[in-house]
């Protein structure tokens, strides 16, 4: 369980996260959505104790992130940051091995090696295992960092924009793996996702943020509608329900978007008159 209570963070008088209180149940995938600068990444970083908070209190799996033993925290929660450039020359295998650092302190036993190999395999990196990270594409590097996170084998996985740099197929594969981690392995996955439709289609729980505050949370069906998109993202668009999950129709030019919104309103009006 992740409990965030009254958390506030300001950078030079600009309040980035403003008195946020949320509590996330263990298991499943939670996505934090919101416009740029809404404070999503900062909140995630504070949960992962990478950024200190000015006020408030956060606990993950019963551990207070600002006071618990760093090693124990590292065995409880792992985070994938947005920025994963690597000026140093490490191979994929080196990097993923360091995922075992909180458990082994660098002296890998047979179990550690097995987990490293599995993680490399899960992220489809077997053929790249001895390649240097600085000579790989952004997407390959992203997968290597996720493999390191998997090797860390924590109950809580935090990911900041895990779909960055990934093409359609790899983005879907990544989400499948996170879904598998949540469903089959019982992990709690919390991620910041850019695209509201990916968030809607893959998450059990959504947290919408605006100007540092949580403005909506719940299941995708409860949260995602035209009014919320307008409020949170400032985009006027229709929402259709496909395969049981709400999908925002935002990819098209403004004229067509408005057309769809009108059609949606007319449809709603029609259903109402029909009901009468």
């Amino acid at each position, binding site marked *: 369980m992740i409990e965030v209570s009254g958390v506030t963070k300001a950078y030079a008088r600009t309040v980035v996260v403003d008195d946020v209180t949320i509590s996330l149940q263990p298991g499943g995938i939670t996505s934090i959505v919101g416009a740029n600068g809404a404070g999503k990444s900062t909140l995630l*970083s504070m949960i*992962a*104790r*990478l950024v200190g908070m000015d006020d408030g209190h956060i606990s993950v799996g019963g551990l207070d992130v600002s006071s618990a033993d*760093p*090693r*124990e*925290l*590292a*065995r409880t929660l*792992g*985070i994938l*940051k947005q*920025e994963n*450039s*690597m*000026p*140093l*020359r*490490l*191979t994929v295998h*080196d*990097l993923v091995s*360091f*995922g075992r*650092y*909180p458990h082994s*302190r*660098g002296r890998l036993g047979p179990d550690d090696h097995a987990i490293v190999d599995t993680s490399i395999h899960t992220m489809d990196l077997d053929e790249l295992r*001895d*390649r*240097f990270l*600085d*000579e*790989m594409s952004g997407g390959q590097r992203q997968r290597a960092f996720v493999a390191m996170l998997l090797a*860390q084998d924590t109950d809580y996985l935090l990911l900041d924009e895990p779909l960055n740099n990934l093409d359609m197929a790899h983005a879907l594969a990544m989400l499948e793996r996170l879904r598998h981690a949540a469903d089959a392995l019982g992990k709690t996955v919390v991620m910041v996702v850019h695209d509201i439709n990916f968030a809607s289609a893959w998450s059990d729980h959504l947290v919408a943020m605006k100007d540092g505050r949580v403005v909506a949370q719940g299941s995708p069906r409860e949260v995602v509608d035209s009014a919320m998109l307008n409020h949170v993202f400032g985009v006027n668009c229709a929402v259709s329900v496909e395969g049981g999950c709400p999908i925002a129709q935002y990819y098209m030019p403004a004229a067509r978007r408005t057309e769809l919104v009108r059609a949606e309103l007319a449809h709603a009006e029609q259903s109402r008159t029909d009901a009468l």
Partner: protein
Amino acid sequence: MTSLVSPAGVGIRPRGWMLPLAVLCLVVASLVSLFVGVADLHPLDFLRGTATDDQWLNLMASRIPRTTAVLLAGSALALSGMLMQLLVRNKFVEPGTVGTSESAAAGLLAVTLLWPAAPLAVKMAIAVVFALAGTALFLRLVRSLPPTTSLIAVPLVGMMLAGMVSAATTFVAHRLDLLQTLGVWMAGDFSGVLRGRYELLWLVAGVFVAVWFFADRFTVASLGEAHATSLGLNHRQAMRLGLALVSVASAVCLVVVGNIAFVGLVVPNLVSMVLGDRLRRSLPWVALAGAGFVLACDLVARTINFPYEIPVGTIAGVVGAAVFLVLLWKRTPAVSR
């Protein structure tokens, strides 16, 4: 195109026999180095027992100390360059270009002025303290750079800091007529190494052992503060420890043999191209290659103008600069943050 030695970008796994072979090569080169010099020494004389007392004295008091000093200083310079590159996450820094060595020299100057009769160990301790302060200042400057700063700005900041420290030191030395002494410190030279004057270099062996012991910690720290923290490492503590070790190694080298440019830059970069930056794997190679590089430069310095000697720093500077330029050209900028 991206890498000199491994075109496919695949890390080369050193085979088990390679390290002993490299050690053997270094031992042979060291033996050669022992018998190069003005005085006529032949290995056979020592084996047959026909060497004179003078020859024994020369071997024990001058030749062996000198070769030992070359090996220790070479590995120390390469080692501290490698460690600094990892911790600063920048391939273009080394203690000699970011103010560490200059600060050590400032400390040496200070102690020479204030307590000229201080024992060598005290002078060294003061130099280490100054080196630490200089390195800490460099880190603070780098940390305050905006995150979007280009990678090249980091070594530039170091060079400016080094320039300022060395300008101040030179000014004081000039006023007090110590310029020549300062010049001797800064120019790497092994010709003054004699028994009783180099033993402090063995501290370097201690630094090597410490770096080996903490190798994984330093590599994790090199992943950056966020990753290191996420993996449960106290990043700040690891940085402090690493930079303290760098400062000790480079101050000790400066006090005993002077500054030798480019060793800390070229050797770790070459090793990293082939073996990568995982310290536990690359450390012995960095130490060996550093020792080998300086040994080769020293042999050239002693034979090129025989029987006269050129300071080894000059040779290392010329060779190192050339190699470094080739590295810059050959390497695609895989260094973007």
